[in-house]
């Protein structure tokens, strides 16, 4: 008798069932969430239909490196963007789920699942600067990442937590990405290369609304993180030459800085938005998953620094990112989704009371991370969490403009703030 093959699909609600269960949550956002947690693969004809002159396909950043014909990101009909890595089902790094498959139907790219067309999909457009080179001869796409409306600067392409053995965040592939690519890229980008790429990117009318800076943690300096702060201030000072306004839409995603460092960022630069990702909304699980952050700063101190940032940068300008679903990872995560939801949202509410928003990034198991064989959370749980965070945002009248569907596009809960 043939052995029966148990499918993950039998254990959890399907996309359609989750859409039905949450009738007031955007079906586009639920789909995005599912695509993010499961990843995507492409049929050969879908790959053949990609136009590298029109679609953004090359990428060098802290989380991945690619130069092929696979699109950097997806966009749905409603403008919802999706950051979804290509997942080869047989790789063993698929988080226990099958990826969606992008195919061509009636001449259009479509997301499919089990052979059924789910929704039309587009790709992030290639920005004009991608084909240009800096005065030092560096291709600009290698020093400046582009989302549909945001440019990303990843100055430090490694992370110091990983240099302290066992201290890297367990879900994070930064060190693995750097290790794989260190023969072709430097650990730190050249400021001038980046400044030239940004100046070129700004020449494209209607393309960019935000500049974001995000790197691995740089712990050194006279005081912890002073090198990191100096790095960002140097970069922001070079960028300010492009603008006549004193402050422009910019966001820093970094380690949590002390009050002196935060004031320097606010007072000396054009920076307007500040994010320090706490990753997990529970101290005990944070200590396990993010040992470096726990060792050098600590969970309570991280929160305190966020509260200070909210006072310095003002309403709506400060939030913290979470890797939504990683808190359920075995063996030390929450035992049930119900407990994770209740405790996570209670913690999010405390942050909201202090003027700090939460940006939910869907946890997808990343190859090269410590957790690469783990399992992603259910769509039902992730949707309930997005809805819960959206409710808090409305209750505490928090704006999400530094991390919304346009300026970021990676957070289901802030996507919901569109209505």
């Amino acid at each position, binding site marked *: 008798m043939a052995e029966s093959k148990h499918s993950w699909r039998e254990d959890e609600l399907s996309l359609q069932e989750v859409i039905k269960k949450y009738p*007031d949550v*955007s*079906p*586009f*956002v639920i789909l995005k969430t599912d695509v993010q947690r499961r990843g995507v693969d492409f049929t050969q004809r879908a790959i053949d239909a990609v136009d590298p002159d*029109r679609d953004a396909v090359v990428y060098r950043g802290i989380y991945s490196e690619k130069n092929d014909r696979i699109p950097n990101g997806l*966009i749905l*009909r*409603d*403008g919802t963007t999706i950051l979804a890595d290509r997942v080869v089902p047989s790789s063993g790094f698929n988080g226990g789920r099958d990826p969606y498959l992008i195919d061509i139907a009636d001449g259009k790219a479509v997301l499919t699942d089990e052979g059924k067309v789910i929704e039309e999909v*587009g790709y*992030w*457009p290639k920005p004009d600067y991608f084909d240009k080179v800096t005065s030092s001869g560096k291709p600009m796409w290698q020093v400046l990442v582009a989302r*549909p*409306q945001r440019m990303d600067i990843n100055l430090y392409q490694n992370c110091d937590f990983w240099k302290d053995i066992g201290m890297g965040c367990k879900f994070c592939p930064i060190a693995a990405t750097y290790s794989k690519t260190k023969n072709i890229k430097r650990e730190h980008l050249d400021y001038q290369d980046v400044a030239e790429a940004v100046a070129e990117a700004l020449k*494209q*009318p*209607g*393309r960019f609304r935000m500049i974001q800076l995000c790197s691995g943690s740089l712990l050194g300096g006279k005081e912890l993180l002073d090198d990191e702060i100096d790095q960002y201030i140097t970069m922001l000072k070079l960028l300010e030459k492009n603008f006549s306004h004193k402050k422009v839409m910019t966001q820093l995603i970094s380690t949590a800085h002390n009050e002196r460092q935060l004031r320097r960022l606010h007072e000396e630069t054009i920076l307007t938005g500040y994010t320090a990702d706490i990753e997990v909304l529970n101290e005990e699980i944070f200590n396990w998953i993010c040992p470096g952050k726990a060792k050098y700063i600590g969970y309570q101190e991280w929160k305190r620094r966020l509260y200070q940032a909210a006072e310095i940068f003002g309403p709506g300008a400060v939030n913290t990112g979470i890797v939504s679903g990683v808190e359920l990872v075995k063996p030390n995560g929450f035992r049930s989704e119900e407990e994770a939801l209740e405790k996570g949202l209670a913690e999010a509410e405390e942050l909201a009371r202090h003027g700090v928003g939460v940006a939910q990034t869907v946890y997808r198991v990343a190859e090269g991370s410590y957790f690469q064989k783990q399992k992603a959370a259910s769509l039902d749980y992730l949707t309930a969490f997005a809805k819960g965070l959206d409710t808090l945002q409305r209750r505490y009248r928090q704006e999400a403009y530094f991390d919304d569907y*346009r300026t970021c596009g990676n957070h289901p809960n802030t996507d919901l703030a*569109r*209505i």
Partner: protein
Amino acid sequence: MSIQLNDQMIALINDPKTLKVLASADQDGIPHVVFKGSVSVNADGKLQYLEIIETSQTNRNLVHSIWFRRQVAVGILTQDSRNYQIKGTPVRAVICGELFEKNYIAVRERFGKDADLSTVWIIDPEEIREETFSVQASREREAYPLIGHLDRF
């Protein structure tokens, strides 16, 4: 079900002298009606609307409509006082790419360098009805000949 607008209707909508209003509703069903000169018909026969203001109520309502397949309505008043109502559903919110950038440049050329563009909305027309008073009145007289005050008869 999508309908095809005829050439005459397309010309009327694309005439800059035609007055156009866009009616939408939020998640609580609260209506919102505003004059929108940027409504036009694109080469595919769909209604196109340029939303300038990202945080406007109309933009929020159109997002709600595309998410939950709720209809919106466009009212048309021509120079010779004919008026029409087109109901349709937003099917695409274009926020980047070639079409977006082309319209972004056009908006700034028209309204000046402080102008911005949030979204190019594409609305699938599904129903059209002439609402000109004389046409409406004769429609009613034909369908309900006995309705009205008796002193008229």
